[in-house]
């Protein structure tokens, strides 16, 4: 069924979104539509850098326009809580080039 491959199964779950400008936004999916516009509740941005650990910026309630979404992924909360983000270094993602 088509609904099995949609985002239905991710509703009210924590998801990780990579946007076209290279940001990583983590939050609870409250809604979406046919254009992949998303409602992300209690969300925060994870800012990666090679110099320091991951910085988490609290964003709150966001509506992200579908045009700007690269990847939507399910977040394993248990696995995620075991991460030591403050000691995690990574290159920031580059924005999508059209």
């Amino acid at each position, binding site marked *: 069924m088509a609904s099995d491959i949609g985002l239905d199964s991710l509703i009210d779950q924590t998801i990780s979104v990579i946007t076209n400008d290279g940001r990583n936004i983590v939050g609870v999916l*409250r809604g*979406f*539509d046919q254009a992949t516009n998303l409602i992300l509740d209690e969300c925060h941005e994870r800012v990666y850098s090679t110099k320091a650990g991951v910085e988490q910026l609290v964003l709150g309630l966001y509506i992200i326009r579908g045009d700007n979404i690269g990847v939507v992924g399910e977040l394993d909360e248990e696995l995620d809580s075991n991460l030591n983000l403050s000691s995690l270094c990574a290159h920031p993602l580059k924005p999508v080039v059209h």
Partner: protein
Amino acid sequence: MHGRAHFRFGAAVVDSCAFCSFRMLSKRASVSLIAGTGSLQLPLSLLKTAQGHPMLVELKNGETYNGHLVNCDTWMNIHLREVICTSKDGDRFWRMPECYIRGNTIKYLRVPDEVIDKVQEETVKRPDRRPQIGGRGRSRGRGDDSAGRTGGRGGRGYQEEGGDRGGRGAARGTSRVSGRGGGGRGGSRGRG
């Protein structure tokens, strides 16, 4: 269609389906509601409920607009009042009494947290409204039908309907054919 189909049945069904008829904007939404997850929102409904609230809009070009939402539409075009625009690098600001932003230039919107609770309230309220409206409409339609039938004009009514449809269909058909013929003639004239 979805809602209408349900309204034909008993009141109990209308009640239980009031929710999905409200959600009929998206077939998926009603599916997930039936599954019991229950709190799916549509982004544009959330935006609509955010009317009057302050919000931050970031455009694809990196500019941000802070203002109060006056109105929005299904394309996500938005009208803001008391706006402060910030340049991409965040070092220049412009104040403007109002602005209108085309939906497709938006990257994301940041809305106050309490707005999501408001939508949920409305989700609870709205199903009461919808079936009434739908019910009225349907009953009116049915009333006409049944009046026709009880008046002994049911048969004729049906025939008339059929005849009407046939007539319309024929009319359409002929108009199309003539249209095409005209086009063809035109074409042949052109060629000739």
